[in-house]
């Protein structure tokens, strides 16, 4: 139970900080309801719908409702997938409301000691520090390579964790060695003719656990005619912090990144992870109240592009021949890539231009897979419900390859495949990795 004073402080935070206009903007039409995965999977509970969550936030702000456990529960069960935004005719910026509300709750909540330690370790100690990310990831590598993995699996150690986490351990990619993670050049020339100068946003997880995908991205960019700068001083995008109510930390990281990219003189800033991209593109909102940083954030935002967008823009798929052994492919949208970065066409176009590929659109491809940052670990039960519905749709397509465009979704789809016992028939890949495979070098 939250103490009375704690609730009062949180309520005051809502009164002071929640954007009244945005809350009033919701005219409660309910158009967002059919798009919301938690509304559907909860058996149509208004409490788990965007309209309901906005009503709760407004009620707390208006003093009609205390920010009690149920309010917090409803907000934490939201995936933050923002599928409710593009369908909202009133244009309610739900994601911004949610982030603010979570920040108010998180910052004013007395955490139990262990939770606090873990949160601190993750949000302060780990993600903002790329070298520490490398260390932790390489520890994972050691664990994987040393045989320890086999041992823990054998003794069922992972059974002590929530099911999703236990399975997750199996599907994590083979991480690269520490040495490989450290040697990133700062500049790469274009192959043949130079069409654009781009700056590459490497990401924290993408540049450690998914280093291969990052290397592939650079290769594709070079082939498409880009010269690439990779600013050394960039860091994690801050999405995980922003979405978990650690706004101050997110702001810090935003500034670091804006600064890092400001002097690259690049036409575009390229990302290859939908989750990061959407957070980066929202930097202007994050820094909205900072007269010095707001214009700089806006300039940063305007240059941002997903890898698939630039490839299509430069007609990569027309200039390069792409070929794969015959296979049926489907694509799972990354919520943030689609709903926030508005990129849905480009990846599909690229996939359909690969020789040998038969592309099948899956039902509700735009619905969240339930990964959502660390949601699949902290809200395992709901996440697995959502994943199970997703896998039903995947299986219906009769395809063998599921393509994604975000590391979280990729792991989640692998988890789905594992849970369905399909790992010998089906695989999940990042679109970049698939394109690399398809290159006829």
């Amino acid at each position, binding site marked *: 139970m939250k103490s009375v004073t704690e609730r009062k402080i949180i309520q005051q935070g809502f009164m002071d900080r929640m954007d009244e206009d945005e809350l*009033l903007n919701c005219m*409660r*039409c*309910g*158009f967002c309801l*059919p798009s919301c995965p938690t509304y559907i999977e909860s058996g149509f509970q208004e*409490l788990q719908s965007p309209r309901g969550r906005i*009503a709760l936030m407004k009620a707390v702000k208006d003093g009609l409702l*205390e920010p009690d456990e*149920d309010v917090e529960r409803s907000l934490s069960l939201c995936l933050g997938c923002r599928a409710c935004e593009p369908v909202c005719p009133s244009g309610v910026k739900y994601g911004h409301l949610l982030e603010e509300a979570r920040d108010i709750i998180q910052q004013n909540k007395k955490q139990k000691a262990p939770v606090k330690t873990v949160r601190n370790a993750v949000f302060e100690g780990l993600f903002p520090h790329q070298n520490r990310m490398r260390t932790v990831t390489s520890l994972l590598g050691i664990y994987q390579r040393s045989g320890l993995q086999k041992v823990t699996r054998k003794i069922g150690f992972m059974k002590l964790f929530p099911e999703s986490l236990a399975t997750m351990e199996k599907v994590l990619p083979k991480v690269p060695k520490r040495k490989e993670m450290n040697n990133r050049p700062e500049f790469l020339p274009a192959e043949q003719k130079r069409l654009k100068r781009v700056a590459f946003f490497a990401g924290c997880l993408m540049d450690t656990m998914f280093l291969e995908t990052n290397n592939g991205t650079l290769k594709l960019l070079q082939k498409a005619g880009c010269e690439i700068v990779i600013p050394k001083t960039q860091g994690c995008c801050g999405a995980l912090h922003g979405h978990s109510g650690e706004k101050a930390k997110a702001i810090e990281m935003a500034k670091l990144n804006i600064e890092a990219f400001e002097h690259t003189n690049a036409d575009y800033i390229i990302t290859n992870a939908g989750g990061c991209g959407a957070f980066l593109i929202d930097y202007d909102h994050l820094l909205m109240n900072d007269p010095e940083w707001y214009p700089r954030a806006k300039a940063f935002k305007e240059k941002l592009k997903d890898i698939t967008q630039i490839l299509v823009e430069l007609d990569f798929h027309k200039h390069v021949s792409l070929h794969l052994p015959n296979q049926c492919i489907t694509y799972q949208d990354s919520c943030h890539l689609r709903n926030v970065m508005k990129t849905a066409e480009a990846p599909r176009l690229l996939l359909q231009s690969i020789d040998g590929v038969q592309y099948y659109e899956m039902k509700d491809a735009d619905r969240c897979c339930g990964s959502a940052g660390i949601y699949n670990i902290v809200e395992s039960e709901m996440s697995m419900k959502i994943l199970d519905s997703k896998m039903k749709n995947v299986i219906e397509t009769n395809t063998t390859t599921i393509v994604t465009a975000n590391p979280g979704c990729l792991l989640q789809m692998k988890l789905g495949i594992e849970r369905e016992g399909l790992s010998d028939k089906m695989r999940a890949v990042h679109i970049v990795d698939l394109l690399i495979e398809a290159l006829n070098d």
Partner: protein
Amino acid sequence: MISQIVKDRLISIVGIENVDDSKAGRLVYSYDATPQFQSLPDIIVSPRNTQEIAEIVKLCSEFKIPIVPRGSGTNLCAGTCPTEGGLVLLFKHMNQIIDIDEENLTITVQPGIITLDMIHAVEAKGLFYPPDPSSMKISTIGGNINENSGGLRGLKYGVTRDYVLALEVVLPNGDIIRTGGKLAKDVAGYDLTRLFVGSEGTLGIITEATLKLIPMPETKKTMLALFQDIEAAARSVSKIIANRIIPTTLEFLDQPTLIAVEDFANIGLPTNVKAVLLIEQDGSKDVVDKDMEKIATLCLEENAESVEIAKSEEEADALRTARRVALSALARLKPTTILEDATVPRSEIAKMVRSINEIAEKYQLNICTFGHAGDGNLHPTCLTDVRNTEEIERVEQAFAEIFEKAIDLGGTITGEHGVGVMKAPYLEWKLGKEGISAMKAIKTGFDPLNILNPGKVFAKDSRKRVVIST
């Protein structure tokens, strides 16, 4: 407040997971899509079948607890706002199709099914269920029946009422009755089926409905006619119908609405014209072609700037979708959007549109207008801000005048959204004192304890009619 005894008995009827009296749970059922109305219920209950509903109703009459049946809460008359507290009854478990009868052309469903889900199921069999309220992606059949909802296809095909053949209803005393049947002809006694349609949850709880289906029309064409003069658009509507053409759809949007919709939908709607008509015709191919040609000529005669037929089904669909999101898109412009539902005989459309604009000017308000022009059903929509109490006052006066005008033109205070709480003070204008007493007698006959959706339809006080100064 609900006592522990009642709560325990509810739990024994529907199970603990289907009873919620948490504060947050009550809050999210304290509103519907109607602006400015909010009131907390005491408890929310989600029954799984008719029997459970009958038991809940009996319990509620024993303890005189108000029952507010609720579909998706998309109504625009505060019909599901629990103004007197009590129990909100949800149909989320009761959303199944019971049977599609291809021989009798009927479908039987539970009340909680989403309208569009049902339409998809029907169309998968090559059949057609015409009522298509703009909210159909969200609204439930139970809600449609109780509001007697209309839609874009209402002009030619009528409204929900015209498709309800049979109902299963739990009455306020707990009796379960069946009305109507899968019959084309049936004159046995009072037409209770029709009485329940549009009863706004005040006479009984609908637990099952059999709806009429018709064959899918062979083809369909969609057209957009652009006008630089609002009244010319309105005149075209009257003219089309006077020429004995009944299009499936004949929708009107004014410029501010167009701009707002385009801003949301980005489908290339013209935003530089004063008004557009969205026109559709369906049926056999030669009839459709002939009608569309004639309609185009009539519009051009009324100085339409251009008429254009949608080139593909996608384009047509985009246009229909654009019309359907009009209300919510307008909501982008100002914090509060108050939509009304004044309806006049279609020959009076032009006069009504002109009056709305004059009234808006008189009260210095921003009122956009769109609606089912072919049905004479207009939705003047005021963009305002609840926090500006002075302006809200003017909004109320303006709408009172708009209703007044509608009635004077032989129209009504609501064409499809229902009376609920919002229109209740005006109902007497339309019905007269005697009409109200007749309706009250029916209400008391069915629900002597007044437990079913109390406070709706009948107002405590009626409004005085304003005298329009023209």
